[in-house]
C-alpha cells in the first residue's frame, strides 16, 4: 500500500493563526516538550537524510559516516540494465497512468460537483474506496480477473490497475477546487457567446489548474511508488522500479539502492516544492 498511497492528505494544513492564541511563556515543561518533539522530528527525518551521504560512499559495504566520496553506486545503477530498464518501465507506466487518471478524473469531477442525479452519494463512496481497501486485496482481486482476461504481465493491465488506484487522488483534488469555483464566471462567458467547450477551455480550466496539477502529481506518484499490485501483475519482463528495489532488499542490501533512494528523495522533495508553488500561485490569482 502504498500506503501509500493511502490517502495522502494534501499539504494545505495551516490556516492563519487564530486570533487570541496565547503566547507561551518559557517554562521548563515547555522546554521538555520542545526537546521531545525535536527527537520525534529527528526520528522522522533522519532516516530519509542519512541515505543521501551513504549513496556517495566509497566503501564496498555499508558504513556511516562514509569513508570517502565516490559515484560508484550511481555508476552501478546506470550501467546495469536491470536497474535502468525497471526505472524506464516505471516512468512509462506512471506517465500513462497520470494522463489517463487526470482526464477521467476531471470528467468525473465535473459530473460529481455539477451533476444532480440519483445515487451520487453512493458513487462518491465507490470512487474513493480504492483508497480505503487494503492494496493487497485489490492486488489479488485484480489478479484473479486478469488471469482470465490474459492481462497479467501486460503493460495495459498494469496501467489500468494503477489508474484505478490513482483516480481518487485526481478526483479529490479537482472536486475540491471545483467547489470553490464561482459558476457565474461560466454563465458570464456563455452569455457572451462562448460555446461550452470554449467556456471550459478558457474559463474553467485555468481556474481549476492548481487542483488538476496536484491531482496529476499524486496520480503519478501513486503509480510510480506502487509495489504490491505490480508484484502480482507486472511479471519479470515488465518489472518496475519498486519491484526491482524490493528484490534487492530481500536478497542482499545492495548499496545501489542508496543511490536509487537518493534520486527518489530528491524527486519527492522537488514535487512537494512544485505543488506548494503552484498552490500559492493559484491562491494569489483567486
Amino acid at each position, binding site marked *: *500500500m502504498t*500506503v*501509500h498511497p*493511502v*490517502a*495522502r*492528505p*494534501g499539504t*494545505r*494544513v*495551516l*490556516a492563519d493563526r487564530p486570533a*487570541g*492564541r*496565547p503566547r507561551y511563556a518559557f517554562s521548563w515543561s515547555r522546554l521538555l516538550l520542545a526537546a*521531545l*518533539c525535536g527527537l*520525534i*522530528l529527528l*526520528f*522522522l*527525518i533522519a*532516516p530519509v537524510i*542519512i*541515505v543521501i551521504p551513504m549513496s556517495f560512499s566509497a566503501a564496498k*559495504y*555499508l558504513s*556511516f559516516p562514509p569513508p570517502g566520496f565516490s559515484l560508484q553506486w550511481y555508476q552501478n545503477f546506470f550501467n546495469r540494465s536491470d536497474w535502468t530498464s525497471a526505472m524506464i518501465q516505471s516512468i512509462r507506466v506512471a506517465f500513462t497512468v497520470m494522463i489517463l487518471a487526470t482526464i*477521467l478524473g476531471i*470528467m468525473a469531477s465535473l*459530473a460529481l460537483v455539477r451533476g*444532480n442525479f440519483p445515487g451520487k452519494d453512493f458513487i462518491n*463512496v*465507490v*470512487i474513493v*474506496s*480504492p483508497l*480505503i481497501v*487494503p492494496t493487497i486485496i*485489490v492486488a*489479488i482481486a485484480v489478479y*484473479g*480477473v486478469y488471469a482470465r482476461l490474459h492481462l497479467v504481465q501486460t503493460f495495459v493491465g498494469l496501467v489500468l490497475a494503477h*489508474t484505478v488506484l490513482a*483516480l481518487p487522488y485526481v*478526483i*479529490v*483534488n479537482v472536486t*475540491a477546487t471545483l467547489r470553490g469555483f464561482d*459558476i457565474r464566471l461560466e454563465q458570464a462567458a456563455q452569455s457572451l457567446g462562448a460555446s461550452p467547450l470554449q467556456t471550459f477551455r478558457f474559463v474553467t480550466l485555468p481556474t481549476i489548474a492548481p487542483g488538476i496539477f496536484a491531482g496529476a502529481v499524486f496520480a503519478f506518484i501513486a503509480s510510480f*511508488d506502487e509495489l504490491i499490485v505490480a508484484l*502480482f501483475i507486472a511479471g519479470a519482463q515488465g518489472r518496475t522500479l519498486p519491484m526491482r*528495489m524490493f528484490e534487492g*532488499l530481500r536478497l542482499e542490501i545492495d548499496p545501489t539502492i*542508496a543511490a536509487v*533512494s537518493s534520486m527518489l*528523495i530528491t524527486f*519527492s522533495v522537488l*514535487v*512537494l516544492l512544485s505543488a506548494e508553488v503552484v498552490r500559492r500561485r493559484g491562491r494569489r490569482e483567486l
Partner: protein
Amino acid sequence: MAVTAPGSATGARVVVDPRMRRLYLRRQLGLFGLLLPALLLLLVLFAYPILRLLVTSVYDQGSFSLEHYQRIVQVDLYLRVMRTTFTIALQVTAICLVLGYPLAYFLSTLRARTARLLLILVLIPFWTSILVRTYAWMVLLQRQGVINRWLIELGLIDEPLRMMYNRIGVLVGMVHVLLPFMVLPTFAVMRGIDRDLIRAAQNLGATPLQAFLRVFFPLSLPGVAAGSLLVFILALGFFITPALMGGRTDIMIAQLMEDQIRTQLNFPFAAALGTVLLLVTLVIFVIYNRLLGLDKIFGGDVS
C-alpha cells in the same frame, strides 16, 4: 443553471416549465456521461474483481463451502497470523499516538510560519517511497548497521543488538511510515481549537494542567480518533515493512495472502483471508464515517 449549483437545495424548484425541465435533464444526462468512463473502469477493475473474490472464498471445488474460513480458525499457524496482525496494528497505533499527540500539540502552539516549517519535516518522509524508508531503516538497524556500530564504539554495548528481522524492526519501520497519518489530522483539529477557551478556564481558576485535561484534551479527541482509526486500518493491511524487516515467525495477514497465491497457488484461501481483512476494514470505516465523516480523510485540505 443555478439549479445545478452544488449544495443548494434548489433541486426541487426546477420543474415548472417543461422546456426548462427538458434542458435540465439533458444537461444532467451529459454530466452523467462525463462520469461514465471513470465509473466503468472502477466497476470492471475494482468492484467486480472484489465481488468475485468474495464469491471465490465461499466455493470449494465447484460447490458452496465454508471450508476456507474453517481452515483459518482451525489451523494454528493461521490463527497466529491473525493474532500477530491485530497485535502489531494495535501496538503501532499506540506508539503513533504516544509520539504523535505531543508533536501535534507542540506544533499547534507555534506561530503558523514556524509550524509550517517544522511540518515540512513530517511531510518529506510522508512523500518518500516506503521502500526508500524501509531501506534506510535496514541500514540503520541491521547487525552491522549504523546504530549498532555507534553503540559499540561508544562502549554502551559489547554485542550488536538484534533490531531487525523481529518485532522491533517491524514496529520501528511501520511507526515511521504511519506517524504522519496520526500527526496531520490531530494537528488539523488542534489548530482549530479556540485558545480563548483555555485562557477562560485558567481565568476561572484552573491550573494549566487542569485546563489542558478538561478543556483542550476533550476538544482534540476527534483528531485523535481520526488519526488512530486511519493508522490502525493502514497497519492491518501492511505488507512491505513486515516482509522486509519482520522475523520468519512474525507474519502478517498480507504476507500470508501473498504467499498463498504466489507459492501455494491457493487462490480461494487467499480470497477468504482477504474477505476477513476487508470486512474488518469496512467495519472500522463505518465507525469512522459515523464519528467523523469520510470527507475528513480525503479532503485535499486538512485545515
